[in-house]
């Protein structure tokens, strides 16, 4: 590790994950070596069953590898207790899911404040931070909406706000646009590109090759191995002026607000 001047945020060494026992055993991750530096925007591509999601779950400490080493912020996390792993998830990891995964019983601001709960933060402080974070995503007016009152794009932006509220080292996104139409998808991708520009490390799993243009590095996986790993020059869309992004978003919202129900039905 000492060879590189800046320590990478993630270092995987021949990471292996198997499912099943005996004859039915099947290797999902087959010796993955990967180093991710701070500030990278990585898109992981690959066919279904190639181990993308498993890799993401292991990176997010939701799952454990069977073999190999995983260093997060230069610390090995393989042998930690489940309580320690929860602590790391609480402090260093932010998740964005395909199906948004807001808690349906809680309103928008409570959902965003939820990760701070497990840091033991007081309620007023939690809500203050959550409100600030929602402001960044232009969702201040939606603070007291319930999740079902939002459009798909808005829901995913709330989820991204929630992923960022605890100021994580890495943001993990599992097909964040998988349940959205193409217009909302691009808003979300702009959003992710934006938070990447602010210095966040993003690791995104996607099926959609169009979205790789936002990433700074594209990793293709086949059968549990890394097939190709290409650093792309900064995509042109990232450099688009901020004002235009806002306008796009507003336009999309105007259009998507009316037919919320029918759109929901389509995406579900």
């Amino acid at each position, binding site marked *: 590790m000492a060879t590189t001047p800046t320590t990478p945020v993630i270092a995987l060494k021949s990471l292996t994950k198997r499912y099943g026992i005996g004859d039915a055993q099947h290797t999902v991750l087959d010796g993955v070596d990967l180093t991710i530096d701070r500030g990278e925007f990585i898109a992981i591509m690959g066919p279904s069953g190639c181990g993308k999601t498993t890799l993401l779950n292991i990176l997010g400490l939701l799952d454990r590898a069977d073999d190999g080493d995983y260093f997060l912020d230069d610390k090995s996390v393989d042998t930690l207790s489940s309580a320690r792993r*929860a*602590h790391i*998830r609480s402090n260093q990891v932010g998740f964005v899911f395909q199906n948004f995964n807001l808690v349906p019983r809680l309103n928008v601001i409570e959902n965003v404040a*939820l990760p701070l709960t497990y840091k033991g933060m007081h309620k007023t402080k939690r809500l203050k931070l959550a409100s600030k974070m929602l402001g960044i995503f232009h969702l201040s007016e939606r603070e007291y909406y319930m999740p079902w009152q939002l459009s798909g794009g808005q829901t995913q932006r709330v989820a991204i706000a929630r992923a960022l509220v605890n100021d994580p080292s890495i943001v993990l996104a599992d097909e964040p646009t998988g349940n959205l139409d193409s217009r909302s998808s691009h808003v979300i991708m702009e959003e992710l590109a934006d938070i990447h520009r602010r210095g966040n490390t993003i690791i995104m799993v996607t099926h959609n090759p169009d979205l790789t243009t936002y990433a700074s590095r594209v990793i293709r996986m086949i059968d549990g191995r890394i097939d190709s790993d290409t650093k792309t020059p900064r995509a042109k869309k990232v450099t688009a002026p901020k004002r235009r992004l806002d306008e796009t978003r507003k336009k999309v919202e105007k259009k998507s607000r009316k037919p919320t129900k029918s759109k929901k039905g389509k995406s579900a």
Partner: protein
Amino acid sequence: MPLLVSNHLANAFESLRGNRLRTGLTVLGVTIGIASITVILSLSGGATKIITDQVDELGGAIAVVRPGSADRETRINNLTSTLAGSQVTSSLTEDDVHSIEQIDGVKAVAPVMLIGGNISSDGKSPDGASLVATTPSLPEVTSLPMSDGQFIDSVTNRDTAVIGTQLSIDLYGTEQAAGRTFRTHGMSFTVIGVLKRLNNPINYNNIDFDHAAIISLDSGKSFNQGVAAIQQINIKAESTDKLAAITKEADKRLAANHHGEKDFTVLSGNDLSRPSNELFYTVAATLTTVAAISLLVGGIGIMNIMLVGVTERTREIGIRKALGASNAHITWQFLIESLAMSIAGGLLGYLLGYFFAFVISRIFLTFDPLFNWTIVGTTFGVSLFVGLIFGLYPAIRAARKDPIEALRQYH
């Protein structure tokens, strides 16, 4: 790691409010169990307190001798035994009374013999009347104020009697019964005195004097083939500090009379309030069992609803874990929910139980239910215990859910 109690509480109330009917029904299960426990504890406590108060009123210098050994009374199965009732066969005799009278420091001794049979006058024979045979010394031991006439004494005629207020009203329609007669066991008795209304059917004599006719021990013996079947011997000491010595001496002398057979018990102090009536124990034990069963059912209700809640919120558990909740956080979240239900049930049950206890005591009983912190503590402890025991398994099950599986679940 912070426990986040206040946060979990808010969370629990939020989710309990979300399912009002379900929560209400679950809480009701615990409420009923705790209510029955409160009723039993407060009423039996109230009954016991009456007797202790009576003893305290008399300066505490009272001891009684009852037939049967002490540990025998607490067994429920004695109720079904044919030899159970202490007035059917009694091991206490007149000799025992005389032996006790001779002990130093004894102020008065009064045997109490309960005789079965009807008391009738002019074709009226009131239910629940009891015939008691005793000696003139009874009022010295037990407080029996007269409202009219005099108590039986050594010079009064054999076939005279003293009756309680209520019996007087039942028989003659008036409290002024001196000079009237009643018949029992084929003999006629003249009333020479009426007792003041005592209104405490529960006392250490186990006789409701308001409904009793008191006759001399000689008359009583004549109804029982000349044998005194003494239900209880009351002893009054000259002072409280002599009571211990008297109890010990009485025990020794009676043992000698009975050839070493321990078929009697000398009781004093708080032991007096131990009801000799085995029915009391049976009823209390039955009610306690019923309360325990309903509490068990209530607890199972909590567990059931919590398991449903855990399944319903599998996805939420997954989300929370992904956002940094540890297993302990999830366990506490669900445990606090079940505790909130059981403690709410306990609180409601306590209030409801007191309400019922008061209603019962007003309608059927002559004493008030007992209030003390032991009952508060017991009901609170029991409801806490129920919530903990029946909430722990669902909570642990929730905490053990694999976050990846949990997140994959749609509903």
